[in-house]
């Protein structure tokens, strides 16, 4: 009887360990830190003229349908959003510069330093590369759309009208970068608003521009701390909200928000089975004692 119960316990433990061993590896939602040489782009919105050449270059580099109404400024009338066929769009800001000029800001994937999408992807279809880009493996994606749920910038877009849909977003031209080329949009930008380089250097550059032009820039680099830091950095002479850049982004790494919950997993796996077996043993013994006492009482009755 005793041996039987012990073998049961072993079996339960073995089944528990073998079965959930994969889940035990899930103790942290974090992704490995990006390399010091990771690339980024500095967007100086004081230099952007809203020509939308970046949109055209992006469409060409990614074999997408060309940008919406090229050369027609009426597209700026309403808020614009990226889509499965437009990985970047230029927004017209709601505020003008001190000199009365319009302000524009290009939006695309921010390529977070610690991206929520990549850490939450169950099949590693989204992956953060050490070089900077958050890349998408279209042959892995299940289509759960959790990346869209967690992205604080609302970047990933889905092909809802396709029977074999994929997630679509800016690739940071990872393939061009691997060939030593700059991303298509930064290559084509005629006004110098987009500067491609090492993220660490671009942060220095941004601070230098802010400090050496007193009274010009807002004292903030959008993307320095947003979502724990992003590869794309923005500086501006008008409030960032007026450029329609997402507001209210937490200034910490999003994957770390799930770390606490995930670190509890190994503890539940190792503690629950023995705890439950212990409770089972107690209730079993209580029953046995009750049964034995019942028998004694019956015997006493006979005497």
């Amino acid at each position: 009887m005793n041996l039987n119960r012990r073998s049961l316990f072993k079996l339960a433990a073995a089944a528990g360990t073998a079965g959930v061993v994969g889940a035990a590896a899930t103790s942290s939602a974090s992704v490995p830190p990006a390399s010091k040489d990771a690339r980024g782009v500095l967007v100086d919105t004081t230099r952007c003229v809203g020509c939308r050449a970046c949109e055209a270059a992006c469409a060409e580099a990614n074999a997408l349908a060309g940008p919406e109404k090229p050369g027609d400024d009426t597209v700026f009338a309403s808020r614009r959003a990226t889509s499965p066929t437009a990985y970047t769009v230029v927004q017209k800001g709601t505020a003008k510069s001190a000199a009365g000029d319009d302000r524009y800001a290009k939006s695309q994937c921010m390529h977070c330093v610690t991206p929520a999408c990549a850490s939450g992807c169950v099949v590693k279809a989204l992956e953060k590369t050490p070089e900077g880009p958050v890349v998408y493996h279209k042959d892995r994606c299940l289509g759960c759309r959790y990346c869209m749920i967690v992205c604080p910038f609302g970047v990933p877009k889905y092909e809802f009208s396709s029977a074999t849909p994929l997630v679509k977003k800016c690739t940071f031209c990872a393939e061009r970068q691997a060939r030593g080329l700059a991303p298509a949009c930064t290559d084509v930008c005629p006004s110098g608003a987009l500067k491609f380089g090492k993220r660490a250097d671009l942060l220095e550059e941004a601070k230098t521009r802010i400090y050496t032009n007193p009274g010009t820039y807002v004292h903030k680099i959008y993307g320095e701390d947003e979502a724990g830091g992003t590869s794309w950095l923005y500086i501006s002479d008008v409030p960032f909200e007026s450029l329609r850049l997402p507001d209210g982004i937490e200034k910490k790494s999003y994957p770390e928000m799930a770390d606490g919950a995930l670190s509890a997993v190994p503890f539940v796996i190792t503690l629950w089975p023995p705890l439950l077996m212990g409770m089972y043993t107690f209730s079993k013994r209580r029953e046995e004692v009750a049964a034995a006492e019942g028998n004694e009482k019956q015997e006493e009755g006979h005497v």
Partner: protein
Amino acid sequence: MSERPLTPAFLESPFVKEKVLLGMPLRTYVKSLFTPWNAIAAAILLAGIPTLVFRFWRGLGAVSNLSQTNPWGIWVAFDIVCGVALAAGGYTVACAVYIFGQKDYRPILRPAILTGFLGYALVVFGLIVDLGQPWRLPYQFFLTPGTTAVMYEVGWCVMLYLMVLGLEFLPAALEWLGLVKVRRLLGSLTIGIIVLGVTLSTLHQSSLGAFFLMTPGKLHPLWYSPFLPIFFFVSSISAGIGMVIVESAISHRAFHDQLDPAAPVDLDKITLGLAKGGAVVLFAYFFIRLQGLVASGRFDLLATGWGAWYLFEMLGFVLLPSLLFALAARRHSARLARAAGLLTVLGVILNRFNVSLIAFNWNVADRYVPSAGEVITSLTIVTIGVLVFRWIVNRMPVVHEHPDWRGAH
């Protein structure tokens, strides 16, 4: 020669006749299926199955109102997030009976496990409907496992727990088929299987809440909390208790002819026992939700419209059923306990909808409303579950014990 029967020979075999056709000739059995409830079920399936075909043929957008701003709809909120919570009765009752030794709950154990098993099977079915490319589902286990994802843990747990529930229910099927040896072997593994089931449930019930840990700013601050996994776990226990109370009340009435007159079941007594548990769990849940509110410090939001909606959920669907359960236990009113059970179930559905849909994206202009196609698909999934449940209960020893296996593990 002219007397050749019109029905195929296998329908005349004693096995098919007794086990499948419930001892009736084929014609009588088919006639017995023409009932008003079956007509409703048939109407739902007639609308739902073509919708499902259309969804896979033309893509998610052809049937649903999903959009770039609202990538998740009721197929996630109801079919998956609510589905998992409502299937919690299996592990709740299994834990009470086997681990805590509350043997008087045995009569409701098998219906609860069957509800759980079918519930999880339908969650997986709902997942397949919702995923863009569901044929890649095995990738997360074999090809490119995303070990840093909460969903990775949930995927493993749901897959394993579905198997565990299958094993937990298998004895009933084996008794039905009369496979004595396998049935006895399975009985000796019971405790191990139950322990594994409770462990897996603890993990994934809480992890469903962890899905939303990375969405501060999208989920309204009154619902967003770092304690979401704990909220989801504790409320899954109350969901399990509520579901078992409601489901056993309905089963007791619907499957009255299946009850064993030799072993009468005092369902009122069982319901009142569950009500005591429900009162305690819901009260604890109410307080940890309050702790979440205190930790967020956003009492100011209670004065807004969202605050009213939050209080509606907290007071009407958490505190109220808790008090009603306590009152029912005190007054020995099984009727009141059943009302509180129903309120609890509705409350868990309301909470899961709030977190995954209603209070999610609360601050965007483009709000999601489900399409007719999405609603009919979810209804179809529920209908399939009810039909399979009924088919099994009418045949296998679920609401009554098999006479040869009384009191066996």
